[in-house]
C-alpha cells in the first residue's frame, strides 16, 4: 500500500491539490457574494497598488491627451494667427479704401466746381531737403502737363508745376520760399502777394496798412498774373501786425490745404478767364 502510494505520489498530490482547489471553489459557491478572509487580505494589500497604478495611468493618459491637445492647439494657434493677420490686412486695406474714397470724392467735388479741364495726379515723392517744399507727382508732359499749371487739392491751392518730365512733374508748394501767388482778402478785397515762408506757413506781402485785414479772414487767389484762377482758397489769416514804420502790414497766412498729408491733387490745364 505504501509502495503504491509512493509510486503514485506525484499523481496523488496533484489529485489532492485539484480536490482542494475544487473544494475551495465548491465551498465558496454558497458565499460567492461575500469576500472571504483571503480575498479581503489580497484586496487590502493590492488596493493601494491598484490605486497608484490607476493614478499613474490617469496621469499618463492626461499628459498624452494634453500633449496631443497642445499640438492641436499649436496648429490651431498658427492658423488663427494667420487668419487674424489676413483679417487685419483686410481691415487696413478696407480703411485705406474708405479714406481714399473720401479723398477722391472730395477731389471729384472740387473738379465739378472748376470750369477748366483738370487732371488728377498722385504724389509719388517728396523733397529730400529741409529747405525746399516740393512734391513729385506721377504725371508729366506725356499727359499734357507743363510748367506753371496750377495745382489744387480739396481745400484749395497747393502750388504750381515746375520742372515737368515726360512721366513725372515737380509741384512747387505754396509754402516754398520761391512761391508767390497774387491774392486778396475775401472780406475786404485787400490785395497782396502770398509768399511761402517755409515749414507750413505763408505770409501775405505788399498789403498796405490802410487795408482792412483781420485774423480769420479768408485769403483767395486774385487771378492777377494769369497762373491761378480767381477765387480759389489759399488760406486763412492767422496774424496781422501793423508796425509803426513802413507802408505795408505783416500778415501771416495758414494754407487752407494741409500740405503735409497730400496724396491726390488736381492740375488745371487752363484758366477759365483765358
Amino acid at each position, binding site marked *: 500500500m505504501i509502495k503504491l502510494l509512493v509510486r503514485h505520489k506525484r499523481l496523488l498530490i496533484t489529485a489532492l491539490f485539484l480536490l482542494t482547489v475544487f473544494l475551495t471553489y465548491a465551498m465558496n459557491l454558497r458565499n460567492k457574494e461575500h469576500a472571504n478572509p483571503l480575498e479581503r487580505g489580497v484586496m487590502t494589500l493590492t488596493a493601494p497598488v491598484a490605486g497608484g497604478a490607476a493614478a499613474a495611468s490617469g496621469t499618463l493618459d492626461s499628459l498624452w491627451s494634453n500633449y496631443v491637445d497642445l499640438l492641436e492647439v499649436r496648429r490651431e494657434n498658427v492658423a488663427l494667427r494667420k487668419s487674424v493677420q489676413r483679417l487685419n490686412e483686410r481691415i487696413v486695406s478696407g480703411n485705406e479704401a474708405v479714406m481714399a474714397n473720401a479723398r477722391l470724392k472730395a477731389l471729384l467735388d472740387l473738379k465739378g466746381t472748376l470750369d477748366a479741364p483738370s487732371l488728377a495726379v498722385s504724389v509719388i*515723392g*517728396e*523733397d*529730400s*531737403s*529741409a*529747405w*525746399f517744399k*516740393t512734391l513729385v507727382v506721377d504725371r508729366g508732359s506725356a499727359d499734357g502737363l507743363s510748367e506753371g499749371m496750377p495745382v489744387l487739392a480739396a481745400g484749395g491751392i497747393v502750388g504750381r508745376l*515746375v*520742372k515737368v518730365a515726360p512721366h513725372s512733374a*515737380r509741384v*512747387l508748394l505754396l509754402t*516754398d*520760399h*520761391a512761391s*508767390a501767388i497774387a491774392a486778396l482778402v475775401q472780406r475786404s478785397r485787400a490785395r497782396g502777394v502770398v*509768399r511761402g*515762408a*517755409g*515749414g507750413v506757413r505763408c*505770409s501775405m506781402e505788399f498789403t498796405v496798412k490802410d487795408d482792412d485785414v483781420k485774423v480769420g479772414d479768408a485769403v483767395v487767389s486774385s487771378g492777377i498774373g494769369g497762373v491761378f484762377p480767381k477765387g480759389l482758397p489759399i488760406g486763412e489769416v492767422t496774424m496781422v501786425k501793423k508796425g509803426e514804420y513802413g507802408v505795408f502790414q505783416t500778415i501771416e497766412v495758414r494754407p487752407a490745404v494741409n500740405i503735409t498729408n497730400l496724396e491726390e491733387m488736381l492740375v488745371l490745364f487752363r484758366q477759365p478767364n483765358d
Partner: protein
Amino acid sequence: MIRYLKLTGWLLAAIVLQMTLMPRYLLDPFQPNLMLIAVVYLGLKLPHRLAGFAAFSLGLLQDSFSGIYLGLHAFSYLCIYTLLSQLADRLYTDNRALFVLVVFLATLVCALLNLVMLLIFSVSNGLYASLLPALIPQALVNALIASLVFSVPLPAGEEAR
C-alpha cells in the same frame, strides 16, 4: 577697380535711400544728408581726380530731386570737396572723430553757401528763417550718421594718407 565699383554701389544706395525712403519717414530737420557725407568722404579719403566730378554729380543729382535750383548743391558740394581735398594732406583722415567733426562743419558750410547763393541769385527772401533753425539739428544728425558710416568697412583711400 572693384574698390570704385563698391564705392559707386554705396553712393547709389545712399542716393536711393535719400530720395525715396527718408523724406517719407523722417521729419525735415532730422533727415541726414547722405550725399554730403559722401562728399566729405570723397574729399578726405579718396583724392582721385574723378572724385571731384563725383562730388559735382552728387550735387547735380540732389538738385534734380530737390528744390528748383539746378546747380545749387552741385556748386556747394564741389566747393566743400575742393576745400577738403586740399586740407586732407594735413589731416589725420583715419581719425573717426575728425571725420564726424568735418561732416558737422561741412553741413554748416554747405548751408551757408547755399544760403548766400540763394540770397544773391534768387528771390528767396526769408529763406534763412527756415534754414537756420534746421541747421544745427541737421548738422548733428549728419554727424551721427557719419560716425556710423565710418564704422562700415568702406573702400579705403591711399595708404600714404
